[in-house]
């Protein structure tokens, strides 16, 4: 079945809004007429731990989690978490990563250092790699919190979901007062590819 399924992973740090981004993606896929499943672990995510959200869509989806090595697109909101999730991606898969580093506790305390040159190292493993300055672009769009939407915009062109469904999903999932900024951020992301 897996060849008919699109497998997307959204990864980052608790509190970055990954669950909302994966909900917008799932909604857009459902509106486009696909069967959709999504899975992630809540609970600890508020406390700054790693977060991995799996979204799968296609004609009929069984497992809600993406099997290792079968991810089509890895969508990283933070560089170290992007690198950590590479084994979920299929060789030759696409990586869209936010150019952002968030130090884990051991680095904050000076016991370990944040890995250097991560973006280059990910690129060495994945030729189809797009690094996005989501924070800066979102600030340009009107609010740094819309960084996720910039990234969603960036991957949206790679997926078989038309723009109208994306916009409908944004309208449903994003609070009204933030909608304008998020639509702008989405368009900025779309223009990157």
């Amino acid at each position, binding site marked *: 079945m897996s060849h008919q399924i699109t497998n997307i992973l959204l990864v980052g740090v608790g509190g970055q809004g990954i669950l909302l981004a994966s909900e917008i993606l799932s909604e857009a896929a459902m509106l486009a007429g696909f069967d959709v499943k999504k*899975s*992630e672990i809540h609970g600890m995510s508020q406390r700054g731990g790693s977060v991995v959200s799996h979204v799968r869509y296609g004609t009929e989806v069984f497992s809600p989690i993406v099997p290792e090595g079968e991810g089509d697109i890895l969508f990283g909101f933070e560089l170290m978490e992007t690198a950590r999730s590479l084994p979920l991606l299929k060789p030759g898969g696409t990586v869209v990563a936010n150019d952002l580093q968030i130090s884990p506790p051991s680095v904050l305390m000076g016991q370990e250092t944040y890995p250097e040159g991560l973006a280059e190292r990910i690129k060495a493993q994945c030729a189809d790699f797009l690094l996005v300055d989501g924070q800066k672009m979102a600030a340009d769009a009107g609010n740094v919190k819309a960084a996720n939407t910039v990234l969603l915009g960036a991957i949206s062109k790679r997926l078989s979901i038309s723009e109208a469904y994306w916009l409908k999903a944004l309208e449903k999932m994003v609070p009204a007062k933030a909608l304008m900024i998020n639509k702008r951020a989405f368009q900025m992301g779309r223009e990157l590819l």
Partner: protein
Amino acid sequence: MKTILSGNEAIARGAYEAGCLVACAYPGTPSTEILENTIKYKEIDSSWAPNEKVALEVAIGASFGGGRALCTMKHVGVNVAADPLFTLSYTGVRGGLVLVAADDPEMHSSQNEQDSRNYAKFAKVPMLEPSDSRECKEFTRLAFELSEQYDTPVMLRSSTRISHGKSVVELGERVTDLPLPKLEKNPTKLVMLPGNARVRHPLVEQNLVNLSKAAATMPFNRLELRDSSIGIITAGICYQYVREVLPNASTLKLGMVHPLPHDLIREFAAQVDTLYVIEELDPFIEDQVKAMGIKAIGKEIISLCGELTPGRLRSAFGLPQPATIPIENMPGRPPNMCPGCPHRGVFFALNQLKAYVTGDIGCYTLGFMPPLSAMDTCVCMGASIGMATGVTKVVSAEEKKKVVAVIGDSTFLHTGMNGLMDMVYNNSPATVIILDNSITAMTGRQDNPASGHTLMNEPTNAVNIPLLCKALGAKNIRVINPLDLEETKRVIGEEMERPEPSVIITNKPCVLIKREDVFQKGPVYAVDAEKCTGCRACLKIGCPAIEWRPAGDGSKKGKAGIDPLLCTGCDVCRQLCKFDAIGSVK
């Protein structure tokens, strides 16, 4: 209408469509969001109970009054609710009663991975197990109907992947033709004196036999014949993995995991060459299939521990794994207490005082993590105080002074107050610290009987925790500000020295509480780089807002810095700095 729902949202929707009138729970991952969604339906009276036993008793009362009732909990919550559950199967119900138990294979957010299906068998209660959100909704509706039809509570088993997974669901209408609840006496059925219970027990056994027979033709138990060389009996999320990894295998997909449809299992086994039972955790189905004299393979290839994944299932069947991109070792990212968390200073003090800390279940269990490293035990909800009493019974007089129990407000009200009652009653010399942050924080900020608000966010009566401790007989009760490190360490030290029970209550709220009258951020702090000597004292509290910034010259030198976006202005780090380098930015 089609929509995407999580398993928990779908269970709430199913309860709504089934005409459920009452939903009651104690929050627990991964079950919490069910009640956070039943509140969307004004027809359902939704409430948090102080613990799972009370939650089930409220649901039982609603059922006895003639209304349909839902009770939800995480797997370990069933341990707390087991007492009423085991007799509820004897009394049966009036309005349908559904008990949702959400298991946590892999222990994503739990202290064990017990398999709730054993409870269904042990308590003699039918159990349904959905495999996606659509079935969560459908099975919840069906569970209410079965409950009334067979005069029994019905359990619905979820798991983390089902509860927190999302999939497409078709919404239905709420049933409207249910009888109106009213009092109706039936004491010989509902008063479980031995004489009455002896009459009820054989009926319970007969009910399960009847249900097992009827289950062979019920649509939720589904025989799907494909390639007959491999036949797989499975249920719940495992069904999805089987279809993913072994799309050609024949399957017997069980929607009801207790009682099992024996006739259907025999029929299926006769049609396939090799029979497998694929299930997470215990060999619950497998043992029963084997006891029927049927040859099957199960735990020989599937682990008893952890959750199943498509990859693990592939390994079990010796199938090749897809190629993957290797990764290098990187620093881990464990969860941490939030910036400004009022627990941090208490654990810092306990570490410095070299206390032996009996812990409990909540965000403060993270006090175990370095650099605070101040928790020595954690077993279950409410256990900290009893354990502290027990430790003091066996160690030397000098070591008794080291024993401190820590427990949150919600956990204290859940089952901890009984422990304090015992500690005071039996005069144990341990110290109890109630970390009162005015919320049930770890599960996502749920209100509790001391927070002054209901699940429906209405203001309500609140437990006064210091007065409650006094009423339990505690003589030494002190309330402290946990953000004042000097006071915190001094008071804990004094109470540890005291050779009798003492209670310390902290009084600062969780920083995630959204009500502005409860928590507001202070002015953010910054490090004065001129004054910072790089002594690292402020790093010892492990605040995510404080960062070590290396000098960059290859030496071990550097300075501390504070992230203004994360800082809540709690002031704790300032108190650690001997060089006056940390201050608020006005």
